[in-house]
């Protein structure tokens, strides 16, 4: 009976081994030199552990079979052997040194962010990422794109459930990109397994890492450090494209930003602001304040029927533009443009029965931002 149990578990382990190496069960090889080095380190250590495991567990199970009391085996009397003890202290030490050498080399190359061609600042916010291409006038927020319906099971879950965003970080292939990480509130951690980049984003401090991607593609990861309620809903997605396409994309983003500025001159109507505002609200605000504005107090106040909001238009604008200290409410002035800000504020002042009738003009917000 016992023999059967051992044999069965042995067979299960042997059957498991090939699966371990299969895709989706193991660490991804990834698409950078660093990720490949890390993967091979991982596999080396894994096999070393397997070999040690086979020897140690083999010795245990051999003893359990061979020296059973029920078979009448009499115990030997030895209980010390200095030479053996010294040997099995030294051998692991040597194995460890052998493991430390390649690990040290990999670590050194991971820390060398010099000669980067592009600098991207990644800022963690509860619960989204903000990407800024330093010196390029391009910055945007990247929010979870999975719908609440899918999360709550009222809609089928798509292939990239929880790992999809409205706007991924676009990076060029074949260029070294330096990533600077920081946070607006709590500690977050930006992780994309295929790039083997995982780095904490610490409020008030800047960390750096770097990446040079070989192959175009979409690489998905998520926040790795517990950062509050929606920690599990904060994906980090990178779209890697060829350098020429990247340059074109960057130019397009810059043009779009200046085009958006054109809309500032004219008077906007309630309907168009409401329409735009609803879209902005849905991607940015709804995750905390809920799609119906009911919030989840005390951390996230309700907006629907919120008397302070209805009464004090000025303070409402202040809060959205500059955020609230020591809370999950970030300042949106650096990430939403004046039109988006005006639209979302107008929306909040008129949706869900707030009905103030206020139209907040983009030009007014732009003035507010300018000075």
């Amino acid at each position, binding site marked *: 009976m016992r023999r059967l149990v051992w044999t069965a578990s042995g067979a299960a382990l042997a059957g498991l081994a090939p699966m371990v190496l299969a895709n989706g069960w193991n660490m991804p090889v990834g698409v950078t030199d660093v990720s490949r080095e890390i993967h091979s380190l991982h596999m080396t250590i894994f096999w070393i552990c397997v070999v040690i495991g086979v020897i140690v567990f083999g010795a245990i199970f051999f003893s359990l079979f061979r020296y059973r009391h029920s078979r009448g085996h009499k115990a030997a009397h030895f209980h010390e052997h200095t030479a053996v003890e010294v040997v099995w202290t030294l051998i692991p030490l040597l194995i460890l040194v052998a493991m430390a050498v390649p690990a040290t080399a990999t670590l050194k190359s991971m820390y*060398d*962010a*010099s*000669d*980067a061609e592009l*600098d991207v*600042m990644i*800022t963690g916010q509860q619960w989204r990422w903000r990407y800024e291409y*330093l*010196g390029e006038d391009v910055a945007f927020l990247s929010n979870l794109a999975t719908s609440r319906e899918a999360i709550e099971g009222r809609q089928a879950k798509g292939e990239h459930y929880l790992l999809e965003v409205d706007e991924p970080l676009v990076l060029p292939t074949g260029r070294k990109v*330096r990533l*600077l990480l*920081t946070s*607006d*509130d709590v500690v977050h951690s930006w992780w994309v397994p295929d790039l083997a980049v995982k780095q904490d984003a610490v409020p*008030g*401090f*800047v*960390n*750096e890492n770097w990446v040079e991607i070989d192959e175009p593609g979409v690489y998905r990861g998520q926040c790795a450090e517990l950062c509050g309620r929606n920690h599990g809903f904060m994906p980090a997605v990178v779209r890697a494209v060829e350098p020429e396409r990247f340059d074109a994309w960057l130019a397009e983003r810059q043009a779009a930003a200046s085009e958006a500025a054109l809309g500032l001159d004219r008077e906007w109507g309630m309907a168009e602001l409401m329409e735009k505002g609803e879209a902005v609200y849905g991607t940015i605000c709804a995750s905390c304040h809920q799609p119906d504005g009911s919030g989840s107090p005390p951390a996230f106040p309700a907006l629907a029927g919120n008397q302070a909001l209805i009464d004090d238009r*000025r303070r409402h604008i*202040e809060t959205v*533009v*500059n*955020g*609230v*200290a*020591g*809370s999950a*409410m*970030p*300042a949106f*002035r*650096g990430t939403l443009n004046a039109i988006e800000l005006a639209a979302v504020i107008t929306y909040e002042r008129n949706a869900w029965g707030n009905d103030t009738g206020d139209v907040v003009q983009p030009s007014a917000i732009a003035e*507010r*931002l300018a*000075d």
Partner: protein
Amino acid sequence: MAEPFERDPRRQGVRRTVARTVAVLGGMFVFAFALVPLYDAFCQVTGLNGKTAGQAQSLVHAGVDTSRTVTVQFVTRGSPGLPWRLETDTRQLRVHPGERREVHFRFRNQGAEASRARAVPSVSPSEASLHLRKLSCFCFQEQRLAAGERLEAPLVFQLTPDLPADVRTVTLVYTLYPVAASGARAERDAVGEGDRA
């Protein structure tokens, strides 16, 4: 009892052991708090965490190393709840190690009332923070601006010539933080910085 209890050697041993462990205990509790300044000092000495000196430093006269050029980037960030902006026209500079350079920053309070804030610097890569000497700066200094007020503040800095060769880009990030009225430790620091500046 054969012997008075107080003179029982085991009882004395227990007492001695308790006295010693309690002493260690007290020591470790104090040590935990001592770790805070020790850690700060350690960061300053090693540049851990990209922390920079909180006060003006003196120029290192060791000549300018024109054979190397390093890019210094300046990034400014606000923080939630503070209607201030901190800006600079100089997003990045190419400098030689040893060179003395000046960059101007503008503080603006866009709020409707006076408020206080301070700019907290952080340098990346962290090993560069030891070599970025700020000869005059506003780091950690508390600023008070009336509604709509502006303030120009210069940063004079130097990268020391012994900057490690593999550092070719240095990023200096300033994050503006509101100074809360209740921030006891923060205020104490601010006063200290003010005196030195």
